[in-house]
Structures are given as C-alpha cells and as structure tokens.
C-alpha cells in the first residue's frame, strides 16, 4: 500500500539569462493511494504534473511538501539513505523505448547490470544472473535466447518496451509506474503491451500506475481500478474508472473525454459532447479561484473568486470513492457509445 499525502512540487524560479522563468508549481497537494496489486490511471494534458508525480514516486525527483507512506512507514521520518530501498520498490517505465536502452550494449548487458547488484545482495552467482535474465525476458513475452545477445537497434519499438519492462522487473518491484508507456509504439502493438502490464499485475501482484493522456488506454489498464484526472498539478476528479468515464461531473474531465475521437460508423458521439475551438492556449496566470475557470464555459464569478476543494460527489448513483473539485458538479454524457449491430467487431 502506497499512500501519497498532499504532495507538493515547486520548481524554483530562475532569474536572468535566456532560460529565466517564474516559479513553477508542478504539484499542488496531490493525495492518492495505490493498493497492493491495484491499478491507478492518471490522465491529464502535458504540463499537468503527471510525469513529475511518476518521477517522485520512483524516487527520481525530490518533493517540496507532503509525504509518501509505504506500508504505513512515512518516508519523511527516514534519513535519505534509508529511503532508497523503499523507492526501489517502485520502478518507472519511460515513454520512449528508443532512448531508454544504451545502443552500444546488448540486451544481456542491460539486464545484467541491475541483476548483478541483486545477485550480490542475495548471495547468488553469475549463472543466476543469466538464468534470471532469461526468465524475465520470457515473462515479458520475448524469446530469451534470440533476444539476449541482440543490440537495441535490432528490436522493434514494442520489443524494446518489453525489454525495458523486463529490466524494471529485475529488482522485484511492488509497483510499476508506466509514463506514457505506449504512446510511441505502433498502434498494432499497443494493446499487447497493455495486456502485458495487466498480466504482470495478475501474475506477480504488481501494482500499476499508468500515466497517460489517452483515456481509452487508461481505462483499459485500470478497468477494475481508479482513474485520476490532473489539471495543473491538482486532482480535479477521482473515482472508479468506468464511473468517471460514464458520469464525469467536472467540466475539465468532460472536455478531455469529449476530445477523444469518435470512430464514426462504429460509435456515435455522446449527446453532451462539446469541443471548444478557443481555450486551447496556455493560461499561465492564476487568480484566487478555480484553476480551470479561465477555460471553463460553465464558470461563474464564484469560480473566479474561490478555490474549490476536492469533495465527495454525493449522488444516489455514484460510489463513495467518486471525488471532484467543482462548485457546480453536473454529470454529462460526453463519451462515444458503440453502435450495436450484428456483425460488430
């Protein structure tokens, strides 16, 4: 069980020079929990802080406020050197499998480096390293003998991503954080990588945090888990995946879901679907009110002046986990529905 409480991340301002910028608040008090072997999908646009969240979880980035607790142990209470074994339980899978592997080393080398450290810790010999490499490659659906001595350039994008996943498994993680793990992979290969992640969850009891802007992939991974919508470093809606997709109450979630393309001929658009033409430019400024208010077509003066907190959505049809941060929560039906016909795919 991993609990994230009021996590904050502030990138300090840079003054002067070409790269000067103001303070960036990447995360503004994000609270989430990931149960053992559970699945959580985080969706949001670029710049919403979803990648920062994943990097902090994996221990690659420090945080400015809040706390992370793993199995009840608050990491803030530990000295730095004792935190490391906890962060090792969470492994990050990067977006780009083309740059995640060193082109001048074989796959065996990529697998053996972390495995040798494990071998030392577990007092195993070199044969174990080779055996374990083969085991893990087989587990991610690759041919171990054929792959081990290849260089990354000889593998396709999908195969490379499998190697990256196998490498993450070398340290026996409890949670895999997949940051846009399929967005650079060919369409025909995406589903099999998503299936692999779900399969690892079932077989090894590994929790999955799936970070993406593709809502359909998020749903596929977290079909029995939770969906979290981030906007500018804040959770704006959270709940059971299908509930959020079918009955979103926050206007930002509704905008994201409306933006998903409709497969015309197979699906029909939801009755409340709305695509704004403006409002897609960056809004840097922030007032005291709701961060989404400048882009929201339902915003009122209340939204400009006060900041909505994340509160439970109490409605007869909703479950207790459904939370939102909006003064005027109204469920809208925006997603496409499949057209029923006999010869359906």
């Amino acid at each position, binding site marked *: 069980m991993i609990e994230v409480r009021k996590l904050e991340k502030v990138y300090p301002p840079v003054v002067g020079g070409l790269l000067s910028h103001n303070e960036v608040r990447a995360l503004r008090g994000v609270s989430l929990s990931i149960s053992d072997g559970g699945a959580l999908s985080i969706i949001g646009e670029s710049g919403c802080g979803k990648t920062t969240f994943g990097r902090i979880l994996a221990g690659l980035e420090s945080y400015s406020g809040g706390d992370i607790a793993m199995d009840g142990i608050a990491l803030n209470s530990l000295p730095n050197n004792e935190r490391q074994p906890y962060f090792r339980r969470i492994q990050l899978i990067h977006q780009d499998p083309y740059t995640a592997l060193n082109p001048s080393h074989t796959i065996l080398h990529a697998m053996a480096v972390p495995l040798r450290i494990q071998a030392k810790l577990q007092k195993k010999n070199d044969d174990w390293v080779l055996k374990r490499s083969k085991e893990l490659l087989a587990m991610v659906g690759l041919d171990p003998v054929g792959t081990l001595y290849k260089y990354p350039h000889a593998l396709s994008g999908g*195969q490379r991503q499998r190697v990256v996943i196998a490498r993450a498994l070398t340290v026996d993680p409890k949670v895999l954080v997949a940051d846009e793990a399929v967005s650079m992979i060919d369409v025909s290969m995406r589903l099999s990588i998503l299936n692999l992640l779900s399969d690892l969850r079932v077989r090894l009891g590994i929790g999955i945090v799936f970070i993406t802007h593709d809502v359909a992939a998020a749903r596929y991974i977290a079909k029995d888990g939770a969906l979290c919508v981030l906007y500018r470093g804040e959770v704006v809606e959270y709940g059971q995946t299908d509930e959020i997709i079918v009955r979103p109450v926050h206007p930002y979630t509704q905008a994201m879901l409306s933006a998903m393309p409709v497969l015309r001929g197979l699906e029909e658009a939801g009755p409340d679907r709305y*695509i704004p033409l403006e409002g*897609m430019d960056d809004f840097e400024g922030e007032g005291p009110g709701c961060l989404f208010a400048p882009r929201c077509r339902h915003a009122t003066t209340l939204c400009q002046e006060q900041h909505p907190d994340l509160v439970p959505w109490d409605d007869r049809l909703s479950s207790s986990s459904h939370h939102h941060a909006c003064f005027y929560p109204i469920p809208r039906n925006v997603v496409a529905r*499949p057209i029923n016909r006999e010869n359906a795919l």
Partner: protein
Amino acid sequence: MGADLKVIGNADQDAQVECQIRDLTVTFTTDSGEFPALNHVNLDIIKSKITAIVGESGSGKSTLGLAILNGVAFPGKVTEGSVDFAEHGNVLKLRGKALRHFRGPVVGTVFQASQNAMNPLARVGKQILDLGRSHHYKDPRKLLHEAENLARRMAMDPSRVLTAYPHQLSGGMRQRMGIIMALVLKPKVLLLDEPTTALDLLTQSAVLEIIRSIHRERHLTTILITHDMGVVAEISDYIVVMYAGRVVEQGSTHETLRDPRHPYTRAILRAIPRLTGDLNRARPLEGSPPDLTQIPATGCVFRSRCSYRVPQCDLVAPILESVDTGHFVACHQEGLIRD
C-alpha cells in the same frame, strides 16, 4: 496539360478526381539492397473531400505524401508510375520553376513536426512575407491580410501571433501557424502529414475541428496522413489503409469502418481500446510492424500476421479489387472473412 481524369467506381456520382496516382513505385537503394517503399500504388484522391492515408511505421504513407509533391529524395527514387493532377499533368515530370510553382500555390503542405519547422530568429509575420516573396507574390499587404483572416479563423489574435517569435507561441499555436502558412497562398489541395501527433488531446480536437471547417469553407481537397485511426474516423470522408508499401483497403470512411474487409484493417480496429463497451472485445495484433528489409518479394505482404492465411497467399500478391461500389480490398480470402 489538363488530363481528363476518370473516376473509377465511386458511390458518389458527382465525385471528381483531383489527383490520380497510377502504379506508383518508390524504391530505396541502400548498401544491403533495394527496398520498395511503395509498390504499385493506385489511388484516386477525390476533389473537395478529405482523404486519410493511414498506416503504421514502415507502411509508406509519408513516402506517398512526398511522392505527391514530387519530393522523394535520395536514396529513394520513383521507379515507376505517375501522379496526375487535374490541371497540371504528371507532377513527377515537373522540374525547376514549374515544380516550385506547384508546391505551395497548388498543394499546400504541413509536414510532420512542422511546429518546429519555423525559423526561430524571425517573427512569424516576416516568415509569411518570405513565403510570398519566394512565390513572387505581388502584393505583400494582401498576403498579410489573408494571414490575419486565417489566424482569426483559427481563434488566435492576429496582431499577437504575427508579431511573435515562434518560441513565444504554444505547440498548438505553432501547429496552427503551420496550417496558415500552407493555406496563405490559397492552394486547392492541402496535404497534412501527422498534423496532430505532438499535440495534447484538447488541442488535437480543436485543430481537427479547424481543419474540418476550413476544408469545407474553401472547398479544399485535403489529404491527411496519419497513424491514428481515431483522427481518421473523426474527420475524413475517404480512407486509404496502407501496409508495407501497398494499399490494402480503400473506401468511404463510414463504410470501411462499419464493414472492414481486409484482415489488417479488421485487426487494427479491434486492437484499439475503446472508452465504452466491452473491453474484452479488444484483441492485440500478433507479430511486428512491417520491416522494409524483410518484405517478401512474392505473395501477400500481410500474410505473416494474418489469421486467414491460405497457401495461395505465399505465392500470389492479391490485387486491389472492388468488393462494393467504391470499396476496394486486396485480399484472396476477402469473401470468407466474417465473424
């Protein structure tokens, strides 16, 4: 010039062909041999419609886009075929000045990653004036006026964006500027190569909406090259599915998505997770995307990943045949493919 282009088997009686591609073959010569990036592609691009060319990496879709502009560069070479435009004849025969007057004023192009294609050291407005000068545009004020109109049309403040440097604009705005630069010379054909790939979901849907409305307003013939079936389904009228340098299926988007006939089209549609409906219906497609160096010389290019494979597929390459009015499929087993 002015070849009379005939429409072959289109459901729409009034359809006119803007661009006719016949037997187009593009070969890449490398140290390890010659590889066909495009193999005898036949295609009619219908006037005033949006035609989407869809395929995975290695399908030859971007090479096809370049060939339409007569822009295939070394080590690639057009070895066969023709690209005929209604009033310009075979584009592949154009050279020098004639070719320069074709690219831009006739076919406006937004290339892949064009949001990074602008000169970072010049203001956007100046780059538009440069464009006009290199095409001998007589009246620069008229050109800027046109750019301002387009910017307003795309929900941007013209006085801000035209005086800005590219780095002062967001990714979505730069992408829209790319479309403005393609349209400012008033071409009749708009060629878009992966116009929304690097964009956020909300920006993508807005850009698609803009492409759709401008297409309608100006009666453009739009060619959209993409790997994203969702984008295709959202805006196109016709779809051309490519695999390993061949057209495997083409037809009206609505009909093709409703009743896909080629095993590849069916498999790829099934491999896309959906927002609603039964998730267990999604099935991954086995095997790897086509590798140009390993495309078999004989037989069907898709057979190694196909579940309908028969011995004939190893020997004879299927040709694109009409299965319905305006719906073409290249598959030996087409009649048998049903659930």
